[in-house]
């Protein structure tokens, strides 16, 4: 199929989002460099939600010349990501309100470009498209991480992110170059058709390219041992950007890992499956253990969330390693991603509120939150317990489903590791909960008033966490029957 007669309408949401991002960028120029610009935040949220609606309307299956693909999988992930970015922007509006030294318009448009990159990644069926999407997301993230340019921690985090992120990109590309060389094509779909015979001829090179790409993607989704950047960058970045990195960046990375591994590297009849399933299982184990153990020692809430995010990435790797039926595993991961997005963003909304109020980001700023704002304290506890996997929260259902799918695939030991480590996670989440409920507030901390944007975000996230915890059937019955 030539590019001229391709169905370019499939790209409508991306094009619309790109245009809107540029419009917001332009309006920013027109309204002066400095100053508060909450209207831009609102416009960005509207732009993202409009795009999400367009994604839904455009959900029919189709491809553009085998380089851009629209299917259930990409539609679902795009909606998750767009809603996630919209929530992050709602959080940012409060953050930017408190920080006058940040250029507001650029912040929002960079977020939108990052969202665009994530959408391209999810829809890519070609290594080049994938790379462009990935870099669009990454470069925007580098800028966002260093956005407080007069802050020493922020710039330090950003430079670490750039150098290590660039190295990770080089690894991905190096792996890709061999895949291209052996097949003569960069289309994931074409590669998947020849990969099995290729593997028979060149096992070393195929395995090596898998591992190079795994290392690069592993960096994006912050799994051990490629997670080292995460805590530093998370701590240094402005808090909404931390939320962005831990949710949007990570979920987009998972989408692409799924796409590449389940489309390309499964091989016909899963010939290659045996090759990497053990590796991923071991990485998942190490990730869960290391993430949870280091989190035990943390005193800074953003670093804690970074390690907890590492551990969560480990949980999400479990269904990738333990494939029962590929379509089923994707359902499991999508459900957990949805749950993870809402719980984490809910938690970050409150973290932003609290740390911006106190100006510190260690645990002690949470002291006596229950006295200062009972609703926020209860909501935060629900999010943290959800992340730990307590029943009646969506986190439990998500974890239980991962657990069951791993058991069905015969990887019971992996499920066991997952459960034991999530018991450890209770310990450090409890540390925060204890601060909120069992300590007195700091003397000069008065009642905490949440702005509307934060309250709305927290309420939505809380509702999703509890509703999906009590009635997961609403979502699961629907997800489990889609052929991804």
């Amino acid at each position, binding site marked *: 199929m030539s590019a001229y007669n391709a169905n370019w309408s499939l790209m409508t949401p991306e094009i619309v989002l790109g245009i809107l991002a540029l419009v917001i960028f332009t309006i920013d120029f027109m309204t002066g460099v400095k100053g508060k610009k909450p209207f831009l935040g609102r416009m960005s949220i509207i732009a993202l939600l409009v795009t999400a609606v367009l994604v839904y309307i455009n959900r029919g299956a189709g491809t553009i010349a085998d380089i851009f693909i629209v299917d259930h999988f990409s539609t679902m992930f795009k909606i998750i990501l767009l809603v996630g970015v919209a929530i992050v922007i709602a959080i940012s509006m409060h953050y930017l309100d408190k920080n006058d030294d940040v250029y507001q318009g650029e912040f929002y448009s960079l977020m939108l470009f990052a969202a665009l990159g994530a959408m391209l990644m999810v829809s890519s069926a070609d290594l080049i498209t994938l790379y462009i999407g990935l870099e669009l997301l990454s470069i925007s993230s580098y800028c966002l991480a260093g956005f407080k340019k007069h802050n020493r921690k922020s710039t330090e985090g950003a430079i670490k992110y750039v150098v290590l992120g660039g190295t990770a990109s080089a690894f991905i590309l190096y792996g890709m170059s061999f895949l291209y060389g052996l097949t003569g094509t960069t289309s994931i779909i074409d590669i998947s058709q020849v990969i099995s015979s290729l593997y028979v001829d060149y096992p*070393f090179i195929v395995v090596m390219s898998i591992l190079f790409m795994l290392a690069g993607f592993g960096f994006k989704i912050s799994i051990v041992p490629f997670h080292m950047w995460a805590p530093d960058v998370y701590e240094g970045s402005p808090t909404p950007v931390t939320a962005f990195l831990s949710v949007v960046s990570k979920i987009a990375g998972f989408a692409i890992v799924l796409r590449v591994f389940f489309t390309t590297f499964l091989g016909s009849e899963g010939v290659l499956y045996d090759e990497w399933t053990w*590796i991923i299982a071991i990485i998942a184990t190490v990730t869960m253990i290391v993430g949870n153990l280091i989190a035990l020692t943390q005193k800074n809430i953003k670093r804690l969330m970074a390690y907890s995010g590492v551990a969560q990435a480990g949980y999400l790797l479990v269904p990738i390693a333990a494939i029962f039926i590929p379509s089923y595993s994707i359902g499991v991961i999508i459900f957990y991603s949805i749950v993870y997005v809402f719980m984490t963003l809910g938690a970050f909304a409150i973290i932003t509120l609290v740390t911006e109020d106190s100006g510190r980001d260690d645990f002690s700023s949470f002291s006596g939150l229950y006295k200062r704002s009972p609703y926020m304290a209860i909501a935060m506890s629900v999010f943290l317990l959800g992340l730990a996997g307590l029943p009646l929260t969506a986190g439990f259902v998500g974890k239980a489903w991962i657990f069951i799918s791993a058991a069905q695939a015969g990887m019971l030991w992996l499920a066991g590791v997952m459960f034991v480590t999530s018991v450890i996670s209770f310990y450090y989440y409890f540390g925060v909960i204890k601060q909120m409920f069992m300590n007195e507030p700091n003397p000069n901390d008065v009642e905490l008033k949440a702005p509307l944007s934060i309250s709305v975000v927290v309420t939505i996230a809380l509702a999703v966490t509890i509703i999906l915890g009590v009635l*997961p*059937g609403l979502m699961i019955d629907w997800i489990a029957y889609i052929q991804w």
Partner: protein
Amino acid sequence: MIQNAWLIPVFPLIAFIILLFFGRFLKEKASYVGITALALSFILSVIVLIERIGGETYSFVIEWLTFGESTITMGYEVTPLNAMMLIVVTVVSLLVHVFSKEYMREDARIHVFYSYLGLFSFSMLGLVLAPNILQLFIFWELVGLCSFLLVGFWYFKPEAAAAAKKAFLTTRIGDVGLLIGLVLLFNATGSFDYADIFAAVQAGLVNDTMITIIAICIFLGAVGKSAQFPLHVWLPDAMEGPTPVSALIHAATMVAAGVYLVGVMYPLFLASSTAMTVVAYTGAITAIFAATIALVNTDIKRILAYSTISQLGFMMLALGTGGYVAGLFHLMTHAFFKALLFLGAGSVIYAVHHRQDIREMGGLWKRMKLTSITFLIGALAIAGIFPLAGFWSKEGVLAAAWEGGDIFLFTIAVITAFMTAFYMFRLFFTAFTGTFRGDHEPHENTKLMTIPLAVLAFLAIVAGFVNTPLGFVLEDFLTQGLNVGYQAHGELWLAILSLAVAIGGIALAWAMYYKGAIAKDAFSSKLPAVHKLLLNKYYMDELYAKVFVQPTVAIGKFLWDIDRNIVDGIVNLVGRSSKITGRTFAKRHDGQLQTYGLVTIIGGLAIIALAFVLRGYFG
């Protein structure tokens, strides 16, 4: 009404929600909300029980989730076992609600307390009504959370905050086993529903080794929740919570959930003799271990806590030796008399201004008549004196142990029964008789506190009559439609032995703690002959004490030390070592960009090496 059994947990939930939102306006009036809700639940439970006695098992389920080909349901069911449990939970909970109104009167956060109690009652009743083990697990976790909240209610006491955390985290160790067992079970049988599971087990769809593994995993959950050795360490510490909470959660209901779990999954356990042996021995070891510790403790609540652990061990022992009815019967009677003892202790503690050391009490009999009488009834019941409730159920346990054929287990059971009688009356005589040794003159409490005691005392007297040789009503009821094997009944000699042991224990305590304290001339001048006899008996007791009691006390002290230092130490060690490991990993994050790169590269290389070794590329 049995169709509306789901309302039973809903009432406390409504109370919880009301108190959550409007609690701070209601303040001390919050108690009425809680009491009303529990009263409604109780009435409904009674109706449900009556209907169940005349009717069939009722169950109602809806599809909750569909995973591939298997469906998970949610709903509720009313079986004989949970109809009985509903009564136990609602009665104790209602009385504790009433009792707390006075006990917590001065606490500014009384509405929070009542909302937690409501949440707990909801979770516990939900646990009991669950028709499948997954739903049970969900509520299982919730009661654990409520226990955390209530133990840590006085969080400004550092011990309470630490105890709350310890309670939650220690029981989670058991939950790891439970969840693994659950998933294995699901894998093996394709269902979480009790009926389907048992059908699959009976049809031989699951191989024997698997059954044993599953049963032991599930039992691990029960060990954590029911504070069995070696996961019992959290229960004595949990006594830092308010006393009504100890009565409700840590004596009558939540800790019994582990026993209930084994009871509910009984057909599975029966299918594996290894699992039964594990249950029986864990129970026996726990029973005697905790009883020896109770011999030397002086904190009134901790004595009762160790006693609870010991009695829970008794129930496990009964279940493990085939005494399905005996174990659950003891669960029921124990719930009543242990709740009575705890509330009695609460009444005493309240009267002596929150002192808990029995050496600082004494002479309460004259000052707090009603509390003392009811406490005595509770103590007699737990000691197993005819015809109180404890006598009937304890005899059932002994009969099961005897019928099980393991003389070792039977001996342990008898010795424990003796110790139980002894330590309870040591407590009773020290705290209630003699002269008052505290500094604030105690007075009897108001009716709000004594009426619950009286009701529980009544139950502690009569609850045993449901299962006597005159008519094994409870047994017929509980075993309806269930194949749980032959249920042993004690013969006359066993009843006499059990009674003799109990009286022996009481007599020894009397001689040591009551007799030693009383003025001698009051007796000797009026009845010199009797006095002479008693005096001789006293020498006998001294000798007896030298030979038996002192070594036992020494062992008790020793075990207590072990308990404090070693078992606790291991639990702490696990926590500390994971922290240290975490710190070691964290040290790699030294802030150096290039270290990060290096770790990444080395990690990547390790993965490549691993991949190649795994695939055998290196030869």
